[in-house]
């Protein structure tokens, strides 16, 4: 697909502005009714999904060019897909896909953000998005007695992902995740120094080639390792393996699990049970990539046609991804199973959750905006009486920690793995 393939969508965006809010049916608190951090922060219509349709249409009509402002607007966006969900309550349009194609076009034309160039340079050299040496990749697992799948074989591969591998504050979480699974007898191993980036975040920046390259690499590595299952604690990696690879025609032949799904399965099988109380009121933050963006890809080929006169339909019928089939209940069920832990819900949850702020390359290029978005979420967590916010993605935890530090908020920030480990 190219951005021009969304001309229909550019034309049909009505400017209803619903992309700016969470779907009205679920608005409960008017302080927390906004859905799109980008337009909430920067106000100009261009920053909304509707604005992106408008920009794309003007580009198509040669009314504007890709200039600094274009890039600034396009990349002050977390690519979190909240707009996509809200839009699709009323419309059959694809705002997120259009934004993705615009980013790809920018990259193809050499219209790049310097910060992102550095990140991608690092990726090309060191196979990670953290601008860190490849040699340090497996360091997080040092001292753990764990199988190295470059040499040994196992049924399950544990893919830690770039963030957990290199972020020193998060490395213990990666270890904990690994230990939890291993202690229940899962035949599991890691790729160690040979683990490479999934390519998902690079794709979101517009580097489509990187996704293809890493997808091919991963498929080959997984095949060679002979694993049957991949488990990752990172929501971004989960979405890449589960959704994006399929989108580009490189669906892995093995099962893909986010760690919460795997833990949930172990709980159901009676292999994990919680014994310790955690007397804490927590709220769960749905990571975009596990929730709405973790919804499986739906392939469709066909044509637009008409019914009842000019009603726009598709032949064969087209199923749009509206976020419904993301992973929402599983992490909540884990939290509910922890004795003493009280789960309170925020106002913006599941398909219409507010983003943590780390997505879409914003944490790299516009850290102040990432922190702003994160702080809005912390305010919401506080408003519902939570003492701690729990997420299921390293990027979320990183950004919430940064946001809390910047604003002096003392809200506790947990990765769900930490709570599971504490409760065992």
């Amino acid at each position, binding site marked *: 697909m190219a951005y021009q393939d969304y001309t*229909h969508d*550019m*034309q*049909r*965006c*009505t*400017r*209803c*502005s*619903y992309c*700016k*809010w969470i*779907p*009205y*049916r*679920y*608005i*409960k608190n*008017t302080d927390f*009714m906004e859905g799109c951090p980008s337009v909430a922060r920067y*106000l*100009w*219509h*261009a920053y909304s999904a*509707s*604005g992106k349709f*408008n*920009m794309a*249409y*003007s580009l198509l*009509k040669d*009314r*504007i060019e890709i*200039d600094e*402002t*274009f890039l600034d*607007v396009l990349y002050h966006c977390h690519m979190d897909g909240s707009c996509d*969900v809200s839009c*699709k*309550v*009323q*419309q*059959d349009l694809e705002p997120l896909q259009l934004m993705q194609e615009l980013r790809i076009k920018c990259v193809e034309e050499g219209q790049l953000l310097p910060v992102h160039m550095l990140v991608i340079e690092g990726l090309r050299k060191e196979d990670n998005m953290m601008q860190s040496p490849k040699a340090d990749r497996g360091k997080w697992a040092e001292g753990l007695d764990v199988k190295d799948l470059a040499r040994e074989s196992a049924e399950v591969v544990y893919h830690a992902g770039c963030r957990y591998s290199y972020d020193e504050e998060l490395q213990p979480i990666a270890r904990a995740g690994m230990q939890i699974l291993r202690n229940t007898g899962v035949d599991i191993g890691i790729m160690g120094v040979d683990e490479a980036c999934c390519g998902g975040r690079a794709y979101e920046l517009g580097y489509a080639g990187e996704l293809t390259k890493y997808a091919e690499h991963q498929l080959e590595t997984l095949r060679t390792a002979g694993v049957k299952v991949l488990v990752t604690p990172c929501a971004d990696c989960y979405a890449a393996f589960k959704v994006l690879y399929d989108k580009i025609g490189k669906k892995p032949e093995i099962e893909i699990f986010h760690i919460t799904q795997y833990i949930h399965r172990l709980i159901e099988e009676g292999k994990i049970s919680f014994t310790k109380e955690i007397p804490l009121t927590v709220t769960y933050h749905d990571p975009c990539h596990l929730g709405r963006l973790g919804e499986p890809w739906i392939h469709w080929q066909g044509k637009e046609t008409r*019914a*009842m*006169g*000019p*009603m*726009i*339909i*598709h032949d064969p*019928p*087209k*199923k749009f991804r*509206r*976020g*419904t*089939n993301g992973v929402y209940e599983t992490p909540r069920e884990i939290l509910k199973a922890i004795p003493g832990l009280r789960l309170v819900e925020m106002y913006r949850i599941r*398909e*219409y959750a507010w983003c943590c702020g780390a997505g879409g390359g914003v944490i790299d290029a516009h850290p102040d905006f990432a922190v702003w978005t994160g702080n809005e979420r912390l305010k919401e967590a506080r408003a519902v009486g939570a003492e701690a916010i729990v997420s299921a993605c390293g990027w979320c935890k990183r950004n919430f920690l940064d946001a809390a530090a910047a604003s002096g908020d003392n809200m506790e920030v947990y990765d769900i793995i930490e709570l599971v480990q504490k409760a065992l």
Partner: protein
Amino acid sequence: MKLAEEEYKALEAIVGAEYITREPVILDTYNQVWGNVFFFDEKHSVRPAAVLLPANTAEISEVIKVCNKYGILFKPFSSGFEYLSLSLANTRGILLDLKRMNRILEIDAKNMRAVVEPYVSVYRLQLEAARHGLYTGRIGVGYSAGVIAAECCHHGCQHTMVFTSGYGRNTLGVEWVLPTGEILNMGSGESGGDLFSADGPGFSLRGILRGRTGANGGHGVVTKASVKLYPWYGPPQWEQTRKPGEPPSFGQLERVPDGYRVFVPSFKDLDATLEVSEELCRAEILYAFGIGIIGTAQMQEGNDEEWAMIQQMMQKGNQSFDPASGISVANSVVCVIGGRSAGELEYKEKCLRVITGKYGGSFSEQFNEPGALARAFADIIWSNGVNLRATGDFLPSSSSPDGSPAMLKKLALEEAEVKRRYEESGAFLSMGGGRMVSWRPEEHLSIGAQGISTAQYDPYDPASLAAAREFIDKLFDPRSPFNRYGVPSRGGCLQIEPVTHIHQNWGRLYDNYDVYLRKIKKMLDPNTVADWTAFIPPEYPDYAKDGDYVLPSYGKEEEI
């Protein structure tokens, strides 16, 4: 025709560099709205020279003074969903995006009113007012639309007008920045009091401020308004829920809230439906009322799902698509009654049943099962998400003059018949081939009603677009057999340039209202800086004529 550096700098000095832009990338997101293709042949209307995000009344006043000094057109808007809100007469025009003025300043529960800034949406006020046992009427356009836009500046017709009124009659005091930059407090605000009344001791200018269909930005900027609120008999908060795995569009109320009852009777044909509607409205028992759009069905995920459902229903011989069946959507009405006590509700229900019985009304299971009624309630009461998904656009061929029900009926039936012919030809969406209109009666029908026969067409299908224009031209041609009474309007304003021929053709037949409109405009806006594209042009364009009849002229001129 862009702004000179000096002009831009003068504006920038007022709002600050962060809140003004002349970047083409951003400007071109302020001129693309649904409906534009109908008027301008393109999705883009004229590109503004700059867009500003003013923070307060003082800044707006200063900005307007600069506009007067340099002869720059300006237009304010709230959510900007209406095509009128972003149309400009020329590229030397600026838009005032009022997003930063977004506070509910007061909910005065005792006196049943709220004071709001321009970017407060109707749905937000509905949510907030409910906590105080109060309610503001329901605008059809959805949950982004502004209270001030609806009540003070644009159309403002509402599904609840039978109870909550509409068309500006809910406007109390307002703070108004005139096109000269002066700040005027209408009504009680003028004497330094708050804005509790529009009718003195200061000037009562509600008619001038907006008239029937709104000045649409042609009269300056309303920066604060006090609006009436009405009793709310429902809970202070509500929840629309769905089962796990259901898409967001499936969220719904579990049941009609206590304090309300909903009925969806059906009648044998459209004529009978309009007749019973008149009596129902006059009985003074209704809280909300609608014909034709009954909202009882589950909102489907998308067009394909909608179409699959329709096919299935048709195969099963579902009568709701067959106007001859007597229970079709077209011949059904949704009636909401509300009350503080069980006795009040009993009485109202009894009246309703007597009246509907008199006209042979039936209560089909499909439209009256509890889930259907809860959906109908949510749909008609709250300013929810509108849906232009089916074809991409719609035309409310609005016959909305104040007037007698008999006249409304005549117009509605004739319009519906014309529309039906376009539906048969495939140009408009057809729902079973019946005549269908929607009525939104005002104050128990004591004043009038907005009757619309909504045509759904596809602006990107040349044949459908041509049919839409032909349809509207036919309806609004005073020489047509409709013998229309009153100035026709489309969604409030078909007077948008480039189709000011509506004023030209109708003014002389209707007390020269256009001449007075222009005089008022001239008095308030001596330098013609408040954009007039959706109000009244300073001079009529020299459009082609057919005899006396001024022909419409679509398209736009723009240099970027």
